[in-house]
């Protein structure tokens, strides 16, 4: 569908702009997502244990 629209001689710049926005926002979302998961994991680890022993590690 997108290929059907004719953006004239400067199409590369237009797609480049939209692509850059998509890329940067995707990177931002991915970073926030993984950071959130990491913090949750650390929090769960800290909350779940009293004293950790080496046997937990295997």
């Amino acid at each position, binding site marked *: 569908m997108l290929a059907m629209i004719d953006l004239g001689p400067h199409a590369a710049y237009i797609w480049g702009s939209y692509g850059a926005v998509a890329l940067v926002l995707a990177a931002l979302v991915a970073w926030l997502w993984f950071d959130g998961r990491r913090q949750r994991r650390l929090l769960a*680890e800290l909350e779940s244990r009293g*004293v*950790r*022993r*080496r046997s937990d*590690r295997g």
Partner: protein
Amino acid sequence: MQLFVANLVVARGGRTIIDDLTFDVAGGEALLLTGRNGAGKTTLIRALAGYLRPIAGSVRLDGFDPERDVREACHYVGHLDANKASLSVMENVAFWQGYLGDGGSGTAAGDALWAALERFGLDALADIPAAYLSAGQKRRLSLCRLLVARRPLWLLDEPSVSLDAASTVLLADVIGEHVAAGGIVIAATHLPLGLGAARELRLGEQVAMS
């Protein structure tokens, strides 16, 4: 194994700190360096570890691979802890284990690591970055490397600084075990470490004041 120090002369900043010192320590012996401030305890230890080049005299370690440098037989614990704040407790010890040790196999190395952490009461903090630790805990963390990498000659400069009474006893135990296993410990300290059988070397008397 025996450490021979013969006619050692060490200068620092143009001043002769250690003048013609001769002594020897056999395996299974602990030597306590005592003396007032500035008597040259730190200087002697750093000279034995090879950081300072003596002006004269020799340091020889019999019973150690003659192909290898004496420094590879040494553990040095100085005033600074050599821990990285952003690495976790375990990462810190694991790095020194691999770097100073002979790179033993995976499981055995892992066991030794956990045993050292447990010994010094840090196993519950294994995943915590070292930045969070108190001064005493940081000190114990740096002492862990004595246990994870096997080296015969321990050079300890004020090892009990910022340790509480219980941890000092623990350190004395660890030193005692190393000596009992045939190792050599040379420790500079103001505090009595509770090492009953240790010999004492009083520095400062023989040094000519300038």
